[in-house]
């Protein structure tokens, strides 16, 4: 449990001296903040993987055997990391080395929380195929994304663009909160990415289109932005620290008005292009301001260090990756983002966040996280790559360990931050982990592109969300999990063409 702090986060040196500068009129006002009594927070995570592999008719390794308590039944292979290290003991036979070879499930360093009581598994959901309401124009990579995250049928079947505002944006706009922290742990497309593959956040432009909102891929850059200049309140700031903070502020005090001057010189269309830039600069400034406020449980998270180097490489199958390619320590990146995300929420620097563990149709090299030679995409298709236990579904399940383990890490971290007596950050959250596709019959065979058997993980106690259970929402639209989360955090439960809340997700 992180020690609860009664202290003042201090940004040193910024204020008085700059007040004499003549260009304060350029500073934008801070965006409206949610009412202090409103503590709800929203976190959306994503993995570009289906629930099962092609041509493997066995039941998904993701779905628990029965509904009800997760603790009262064995965790399926995909979900083993939710049980903590002691419940993540699996070994699997490895097709490359023959049936006698046993390889332990890869188990990275760091905390692995037992969060079986804090996470619910939602299964059995369905995105319709076709051009109807909130449908997937085709069951293929990216085809489900718009329907899932914006509740709108895609206008471009082979693009991941969402055609309505996504839940994180709706939350921001409704609550008037600071912009979401948007993170993407996959460092690179590894030669197989397409436009829009590295974000699942979109804002409606009011004219039938949407604008993608980019996600941060550099933990170091995000740390610098969030916590650079942060001085723990129980420390006495040195003169050097005061001056360093003043320098940070000094840079912003020059570039923010400069950007506004540029804005004034542009035509209407080009001004729209600069808008995101201006918003970003204002966010930097507001983050500095937010550090001046007293927030319980806020402390400096560990510095993530330099970003792991990006290996490059192209997916396709295991043999197409040279040694060490296609994996740039995405697990470390995810962990760093989660550490920052949790503390930024504890510090009330933001109330919403997104984290993509992998791109849509991810071609991450599967070997470092699973031991299976093959990229994540091809593992899903059960092609000419290694198989765990001879099963495409078991192989996919091992790929799930990366996002599931770190979603559990997120939940455990949120639960470890006490924001008030007997209340943790997790109690104020609605957090979900979503996937690119389900696992079902399509074109005559089991397909990793299918919109059947869509699943999600759900966590957080805000709004009475039900935790620690397997809840089967057979045939329901997975966007309804998101509308339920919106309802839980105090927003209207509407996402594009999908509305209402799933009563069974609530106690």
């Amino acid at each position: 449990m992180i020690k609860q702090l009664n202290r003042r986060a201090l940004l040193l040196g910024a204020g008085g001296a700059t007040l004499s500068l003549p260009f304060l009129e350029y500073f934008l006002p801070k965006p409206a903040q949610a009412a202090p009594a409103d503590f709800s927070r929203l976190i959306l995570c994503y993995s570009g993987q289906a629930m099962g592999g092609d041509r493997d008719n066995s039941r998904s390794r993701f779905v628990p055997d029965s509904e009800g308590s997760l603790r009262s039944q064995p965790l399926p292979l995909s979900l083993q990391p939710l049980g903590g290290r002691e419940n993540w003991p699996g070994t699997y036979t490895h097709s490359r080395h023959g049936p006698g070879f046993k390889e332990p499930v890869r188990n990275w360093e760091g905390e692995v929380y037992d969060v079986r009581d804090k996470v619910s598994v939602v299964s059995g959901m369905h995105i319709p195929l076709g051009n109807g309401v909130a449908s997937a124009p085709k069951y293929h990579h990216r085809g489900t994304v718009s329907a899932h995250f914006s509740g709108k049928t895609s206008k471009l079947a082979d693009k991941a663009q969402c055609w309505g505002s996504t839940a994180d944006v709706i939350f921001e706009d409704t609550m008037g909160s600071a912009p979401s922290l948007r993170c993407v742990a996959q460092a690179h497309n590894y030669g197989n990415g397409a436009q829009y593959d590295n974000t699942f956040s979109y804002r409606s432009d009011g004219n039938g289109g949407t604008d993608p909102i980019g996600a941060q891929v550099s933990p170091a850059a995000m740390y610098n932005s969030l916590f650079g200049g942060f001085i723990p309140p129980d420390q006495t700031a040195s003169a050097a620290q005061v001056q360093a903070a003043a320098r940070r502020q000094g840079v912003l005090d020059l570039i923010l008005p400069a950007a506004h001057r540029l804005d004034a010189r542009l035509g209407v269309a080009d001004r729209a292009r600069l808008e995101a830039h201006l918003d970003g600069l204002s966010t930097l400034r507001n983050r500095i301001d937010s550090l001046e406020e007293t927030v319980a449980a806020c402390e400096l998270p560990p510095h993530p260090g330099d970003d792991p180097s990006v290996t490059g490489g192209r997916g396709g199958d295991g043999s197409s990756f040279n040694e060490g390619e296609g994996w740039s320590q995405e697990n470390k990146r995810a962990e760093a983002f989660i550490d920052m995300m949790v503390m930024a929420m504890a510090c009330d620097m933001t109330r919403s966040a997104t984290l993509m563990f992998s791109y849509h149709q991810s071609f991450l090299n599967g070997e470092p996280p699973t031991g299976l030679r093959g990229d994540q995409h091809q593992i899903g298709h059960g092609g000419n790559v290694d198989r765990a236990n001879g099963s495409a579904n078991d192989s996919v399940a091992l790929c799930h360990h990366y996002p599931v383990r770190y979603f559990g890490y997120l939940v455990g971290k949120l639960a470890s931050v006490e924001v008030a007596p007997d209340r943790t950050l997790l109690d104020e959250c609605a957090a979900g982990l979503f996937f690119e596709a389900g696992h079902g019959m399509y074109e005559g065979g089991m397909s990793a592109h299918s919109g059947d058997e869509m699943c999600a993980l759900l966590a957080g106690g805000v709004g009475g969300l039900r935790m620690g259970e397997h809840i089967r929402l057979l045939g329901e639209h997975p966007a309804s999990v998101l509308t339920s989360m919106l309802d839980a955090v105090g927003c209207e439960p509407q996402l594009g063409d999908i509305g209402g809340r799933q009563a069974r997700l609530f106690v």
Partner: protein
Amino acid sequence: MAKGNHVGLLGLLLGSLSVSACTAELGGGAGDESLNFGENSAREDDSGEDGRLIVGRSLRRLSTREIENTLDTLFPELSGQRLRFPLEGYELFDNEEAHTDNGQAFIENAALVMSALVEQARNVPELWQSIEVCDSETETSVCLGDFYDAWAPILLRRPGDAVERAQFVALAELDLGTRSDAVSVALEALLRHADFLHRVELGEGSSEVRTLTHQEILGRLSFFLWGEAPDSALIIQAKSVDLHDALARGAFAQVMLGDARARVALMDYHAQWIGFSTMARQGVGEDMWLESQQLIERVLFDEKGSYDEMFLLSESFLTPRLALHYHLPAPVEPSWVTLEGGGRAGILGHGSFLSSFANVGDTSPTKRGKNVQNRLLCRNIQLPEVSEVDVDAAPEPGQCYTEFLEDVHAQGACATCHELLDGVGFGLDAFDRFGVHREHERDKEECAIAGEGFLDGRPFSGPAELGRLIVEHEDFGPCVATQLVRFFSGFDSSRDKQAKNWASALSEEFAANGHDFVGLLIALVESPEFSLVAPR
């Protein structure tokens, strides 16, 4: 069974094709009436009044390549150790507005990269001295003013601004530490300045279509030909040149092409256009990159012959390692080697290209064909809106991949597009996904590969013959011009009526001058459009 033998007939009919099931735009050459299908149909942009393109973007965020190049030129002492921007994805060219998000993530990255650069610069005394401009006796406020006067025109690519200058000078009133600390703030502010991170082209006057300033034209030249902002040497060099004069501008561009940075920039351009820019430059991949780099430099700069040689040259620059990889006789040291037989020639025979559009576990005749059609002939063949088959389906055990593809792709409406795509891809299929010649499919000796294909009904076998068909194709010249205009413009100008007209005019010059690519570059620079903007 030979691949692709069945695909010729429909291709022969291409000129009068009606492809209702195919999400494609065919005949994208200048002056053609495009056949638009489905999602990619877009309203043509009617900007501009004279029937030719007025490049209307007054604001373009620099690509990270352009930023990095600029910083490397400004601060060469730091180039080996600097923190770099994260890689950004793109589909064709990295400088297009669709791929140059200037929002929160970019701003955070710029903050980290630039603050780290300033810290590193301070640790190199000679460099820092040159940055600070003033001597140790000068007052901080004066020094800050001098700093602004010296650096703002270079970094902001416009004259300094009196109000802004005063704000920089006012840093002296703050308790920031030493004078160098104050200059650090000033330098970081310029490097994170919106004017530095964007190309701002507002032109002169207030009319709808404006003439760019001298400095803005110089910026266009530098970004286009060098992939970076103008440095102080170039600014000085250009002072005596009337860049508003087309011929003078063209002559100045010729001089710029003599700089090593032009070689790098045009290598980057071709790597993006051909489609191998994101390849891992490690191991044999490093040698593949070198092979293509040497070819591009030889054709464009060293021999200055016909651009067709890019696709026809029967020599290749091979390292011993790459030659072994290709199963070719290995030279003693990296050198030009004559390619005798085997079907290789030009850049389409390079591992860089052949490894770029593979499928899971094997080649992808479809992807290869699609990228040849779309990138080199400027067609716009895309995935259909409704997929009738599982595009990731795999052959049954024992089934030849060729037969599998022919079966799957012959189904229903799929056949129309796939004949266009696979016809090209099958002709390259005797080269595997690593660019190595092969006789049969991977692990299937019984599945012989003929490597025979068709482009618009004309048969070919291998990169050399495909290269010949490409350079002789009526759409090739217009496409070369179209892609160059698109790269210059920074947005997908292929559907812009004025851009098409401009590309058409340029392609005529390209044809008239015997496919001289450098001549095409100069013609583009000398075009009236080069110095105009229509702010929106």
